[in-house]
């Protein structure tokens, strides 16, 4: 195994508040890692820093041995990191299929000339984009199949929007996928389904997965390793059992609740 992602000493401040305060973590290739922590612990901020949405104030982020600090989000996506958002962000007026097709953008190249003249190479590429998009939608079985693919994304149910967001991320053909609370707002059955999908991402697609999750059944079911954060720092990591019984973690959850 090799280190796919390595975050070292990352600090990210918003005004006086350090959302990430010297965060250190790494992810091995082929691992499923859960990131847990109370609200405001800095989990989403971690994803935003890794994907280039926010530049870190200090520290380094390495992907596959190479520093990606300072790269634009689309460059990082092209290197092989895909993500979903905590609050779903689809291209609401594009069809389900088109949403997934946008994911293929970074793997294809035809430009204005190709668009206007449509030489065979462009047509083939367009066919391929469609193919990959269909395949990533098919990851969720019948959920996003058939007539739904021609519907605009905004008519989808909430759970399907989450699935489509993941399918769009899969269509970028990533090596590492970052899922920000993929089961938020889902009912228990859909949550269990999603748990299985997360495992399938690694087993069938060979992806490395980092997932932020509040639902402990999911965390327990998928994680090779659990990382618990609080105040922008890692407070515990290891197996689910170890982290769940770590006094600092319990204190973080309970203490916060008692104050709140």
């Amino acid at each position, binding site marked *: 195994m090799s280190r796919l992602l390595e975050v070292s000493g990352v600090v990210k401040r918003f005004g006086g508040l350090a959302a990430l305060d010297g965060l250190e973590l790494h992810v091995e290739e082929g691992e499923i890692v859960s990131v847990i922590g109370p609200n405001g612990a800095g989990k989403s901020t971690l994803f935003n820093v890794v*994907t*280039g*949405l926010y530049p870190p104030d200090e520290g380094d982020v390495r992907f596959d041995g190479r520093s990606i600090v300072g790269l*634009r*989000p*689309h*460059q990082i*996506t*092209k290197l092989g990191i*895909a*993500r979903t*958002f905590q609050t779903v*962000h689809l*291209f*609401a*007026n*594009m*069809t389900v299929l*088109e949403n997934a*097709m*946008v*994911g293929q*953008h*970074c*793997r*294809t190249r*035809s*430009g*204005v000339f*190709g*668009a*206007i003249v*449509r030489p065979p190479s*462009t047509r083939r*590429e*367009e066919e391929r*984009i469609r193919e990959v998009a269909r395949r990533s939608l098919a990851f969720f079985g019948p959920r996003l199949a058939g*007539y739904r693919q*021609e*519907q*605009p994304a*905004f*008519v989808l149910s909430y759970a399907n929007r989450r699935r489509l967001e993941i399918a*769009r*991320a899969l269509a*970028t053909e990533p090596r590492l996928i970052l899922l920000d609370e993929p089961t938020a707002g889902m009912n228990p059955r859909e949550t269990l389904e999603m748990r299985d999908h997360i495992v399938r991402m690694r087993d069938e697609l060979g992806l490395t997965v980092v997932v932020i999750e509040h639902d402990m059944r999911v965390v327990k079911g998928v994680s090779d390793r659990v990382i618990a954060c609080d105040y922008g720092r890692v407070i515990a990591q290891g197996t689910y059992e170890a982290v769940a019984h770590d006094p600092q973690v319990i204190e973080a959850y309970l203490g916060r609740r008692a104050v709140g």
Partner: protein
Amino acid sequence: MRGALRPGARAGLVGGAVLVYLALVGMLVKFEELRLVGSQVTRGRLLLVLPPFAASFFAVRPRVIGGRVEQPGPGVALALGAVAGALVGAVGSVGLALVEAIGVERIRPVFVAVSPALVETLTFGRGAAAGAAILVVGGAALGAAGGIWRAIRHGLRRPVEVGLLTVVTLAMLQRIVPFMLDELRLERDWLYSRATRGLTWTGAVVVLVVATAAAAYVLDRRERRALAPAAEGRPEVRGWRRTALVTIAVVLAAALPQLAGSIVSEIMGTVGVFLLLALGLNIVTGYAGMLHLGFSAFFLIGAYAVALLTGANLVTAFGLVAPRFSADLNFYLALVLVVAIGAAVGALVAAPVLRLRGDYLAIVTLAFAQIAVILATSSWLQPITGGPQGLRDVTKAPLLGLEFRSAERFYYLVLAFCVLAVFVSWRLAWSRVGRAWNAMREDEQVADAMGVPTGRYKMLGFAIGGAIGALGGALFAVKVGTVQPGSFEIIQSITVLAVVILGGLGSVPGVVLGALVLLALPGLLSQLEEFRFLIYGAVLVAIMILRPQGLIPNVRRMRELREEERTQDAWQQIFAARQEREAAEEAAEAAP
């Protein structure tokens, strides 16, 4: 009941204000001159009828009450409409009374349009008291009619509206359509009277019936197709139909100069130039979602570039002089360069403003247009641009011994480029590039995170839009033969933006229709020129209220609306079925 009539009162007062306004700006009298149907229906009278009718139409509009859409019943509609119409008439009467009391001569220095002719029109030549009565009673009657009209089922109302609109349009086009019929050697005396120049009553009725029937057929089919399952969206079928439509449109457009003569060609040539601009802007604003308020800058750049590259001369006190920098290239070669220059300037201007969004970007683009005009006018660049006088002797675009300055020839030149620009726009929309723009328009940050280099695509949007806009400018210079900074004021940018918004942002057929409606119609309908911007304003406000997605919305938006209806229908069916089942279960339980 009194509360229920309030919408009628409000609409009536607004309608009355509109009536007074139309009278004061002189539209009523000016429009009186044109006879539309027989000798009874004049354009002025039509304009007089419109405010009460429109007021009641608005007063009776469906309302959302407690989350449900409430359409007033026929009785309420009648009452509301009558109140609104009568109020419009009453406001008009009050105006008349004021004019009578003060005297036409004393008002005239302030409101030029208040003339004996206006009083004559408003009183129908029967004196103030009778006139006021006619206004109020007639207004009430028209308002009632408008209210009832609104209460009629949509499927019946729409075709008749299309029919009436066709009649009015044909009547307004009385300078052009009879001429075309003559060219085609068709009998026309049954349709257009030689005495009044307008439509004959027979002609009007025939047109009304035919147009209504045709509209009913088309609308019915469209409705049925929209409700059919999604299988209808097979791309080959749509593609085939679109090809047929486009071919017909191009053939018609190509035949136009033969049929309609040089005045129409002249007007349509200008429309073509602006259509090119609008297509360019449509890429920047419609596809890529960046509001551009200074698009006339590309117009200017294209015009000056082609003038300088093809050997135009400066106008100076000492006669014509060659500019400091100029070339004497073949027009078509120069055009390639002009397009490249437009693209380069577009990209260069975009580079520093990539981080700006929305309003900020709009303001910068506005400044960009201003800077372009100031530079062209400046004494610093006078040796090249000719300052305020500009350049003249622009090329006539010779090709194989033909020159393209005359109205008909120029029309064909611009038509060819418009077809090209439409093709390019359409191909771009359905490509990887178009998808990237679309994603960027929806959510820039997310598009970036999904791998779309948004900065590059913004520049690309500006570059391609700029190239097409510059092409329009180049053709404009050929058409006019001179280039002056005065032709590229802000109002041109606004006009082009209005075309794109009216037609439908991001929709190529919409932009074409928008250009025809906003630019061709005022030119073709005689005497509208004077009130052009007034009408633009009114049309834009109406569009924003009634149809914010534009005349022919972008496919995606259309899908939005249709899909919503469809899912809603399906949902209602399921809901109804469930209720039925529950009722049955309850009944089964109740029975022992």
